């Protein structure tokens, strides 16, 4: 755990985080807004990694969980004058609760039926819960909530760079905590549950509790992302949390590889900056989405494990090839894992 290889990795990771934190200092406000969006998308993909990657449960309603966080924060701040710091934990708690509630029927379902259940939850949220007239105290009704950005320890987060740094810090903490969970007992237990629920129960694991915990954790992370998004935009309206966003999110996480935590930042960068980069290429805008769609289908067929996972494998193989000439390097064994 503390060999030179892992120290090098830690240094490398710290350098990447520092670069990602510093780069936007030289960007425009608009660009920094996009950077914050990328961070929030990364959090949402992290929530999919927890649910799909760890326990093999599928969800098409992550944005509904995000909406729980966002609307709770919006209603409490704008409607009741709460501070962001009080509203945030309540918003996350509401999302966790929603996740556990969805998890209960999900215990008996898997695969396609579970997917349909989560679609139903997403549609219920979109078409009923957040519609004007159903519960305006939560959805804000005709006028969207306008939560303002808070300040942290006296430093206002109103500026685009300050807010970006704040969101990035939260993402880093969330990734660290999920990483710890994954490499410790929780990761082992959840993989065990995914492999054989029968065996898991007979060695003393409360499969139900663990699955619900995974649903709760995933929904909580999504709710956190929703709350961050609400304050980043400064307005909470149902359109930002609709079902199609959830579908895109799950597709994106699948393409990146749900089994890798690194899929989260990769997906954030890809969603926000992919279209920007590609907009420079001159292909008719009608054909372009088709091209992207076809590429995705090809990728899913050829690289079902996901882009991040495959890249990691390729890098490890490359490292082995290189070190094969110079004798075996202990660092390679670490990378290859």
């Amino acid at each position, binding site marked *: 755990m503390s060999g030179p290889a892992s120290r090098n990795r830690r240094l490398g990771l710290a350098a990447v985080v520092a670069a990602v934190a510093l780069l936007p200092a030289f960007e425009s406000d608009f660009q920094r807004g996009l950077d914050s969006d990328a961070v929030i998308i990364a959090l949402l993909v992290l929530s999919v990694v927890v649910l799909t990657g760890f326990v093999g449960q599928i969800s098409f309603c992550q944005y509904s969980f995000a909406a729980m966080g966002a609307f709770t924060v919006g209603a409490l701040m704008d409607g009741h004058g709460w501070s962001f710091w009080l509203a945030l934990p309540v918003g996350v708690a509401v999302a966790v609760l929603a996740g556990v509630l969805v998890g209960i029927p999900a215990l008996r379902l898997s695969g396609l039926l579970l997917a349909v259940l989560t679609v139903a939850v997403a549609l219920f949220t979109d078409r009923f819960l957040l519609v004007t007239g159903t519960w305006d105290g939560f959805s804000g009704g005709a006028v969207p909530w306008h939560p303002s950005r808070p300040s942290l320890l006296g430093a206002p987060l109103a500026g685009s760079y300050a807010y970006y740094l704040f969101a990035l810090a939260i993402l880093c903490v969330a990734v660290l905590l*999920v990483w*710890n969970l994954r490499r*410790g*007992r929780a990761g*082992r237990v959840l993989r065990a549950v995914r*492999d054989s629920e029968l065996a898991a*129960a007979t*060695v003393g*694991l*409360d499969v139900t509790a663990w699955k619900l915990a995974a649903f709760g954790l995933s929904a909580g992370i999504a709710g956190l992302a929703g709350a961050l998004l609400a304050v980043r935009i400064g307005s909470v309206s149902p359109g930002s949390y609709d079902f199609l966003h959830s579908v895109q999110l799950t597709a994106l996480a699948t393409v990146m590889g749900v089994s890798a935590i690194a899929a989260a930042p990769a997906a954030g960068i890809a969603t926000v900056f992919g279209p920007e980069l590609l907009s420079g290429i001159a292909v008719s805008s009608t054909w372009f989405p088709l091209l992207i769609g076809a590429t995705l289908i090809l990728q899913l067929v050829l690289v079902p494990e996901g882009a991040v996972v495959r890249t990691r494998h390729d890098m490890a193989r490359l490292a082995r090839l290189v070190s094969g000439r110079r004798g075996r390097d202990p660092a390679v064994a670490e990378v290859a894992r």
Partner: protein
Amino acid sequence: MTVLLQIDGVSKRYGGVQALNDVSFRVDRGRIKGMIGPNGAGKTSLFNCVCGVLRVDSGHIRYAGRDLHGLAPHRRARLGIARTFQTLELFRELTVLENLMVPVDAEARRGMLADALRLPRARFEENRAGERARALLHFLGIAEVAGIPGGDLAIGIQRRVELGRALALRPTLLLLDEPAAGLDSRETAELAGVLSRIRERFGTTMLLVDHDMSLVMRVCDDIAVLDYGRLIAEGPPERIREDPTVVRAYLGGSAA
């Protein structure tokens, strides 16, 4: 001699099949009891009823003086009932070491937050799980496969790992469902040795189902015979071997 497991008039029916029909017998503490019978005699059904995967239609299962009725499988496991599976149920993507750590994880009393923050308690319990798993792998003579995913191993080794996973629970009662299936005669002989060593070292009570008569006759103190969901005979191996009902129902001409 005290009774550990008391099967009392247990019946179980699926659809049109009477899997278990008023079966009663007991397993005494510290003994190895064999359970034999043709395929479909109800042996695995009985195991499933004892470990709580199946619900009995009628009858009672008492373990250490307590009626297990309505108790979920994981609760029964925590009371000390462990099992292996006829159709291997290893955690295939987990390494062998991890397979043996999971039962220790299951009894840990810490929350997820302790894991996420890597609190000292989490690290301590993590180390304890690893140590117990390694000690068992050495005991079973499979320490060299610790880092290999369970699903990548040969059947014989997988069975050994399942045994280790069950032992990691520190069971009082160990249910072994055809542990010799798919093993060659040398491996089966080794298994018999391992089972005797387990009893010596941990004092574990066992209920053993197998078709391999050499194994059952060698390690079991006494044997229950099931046929079509009924208990047709019970007694020490030498008497079972000569029991005319058993010979007719099960052993046929070959073993008599």
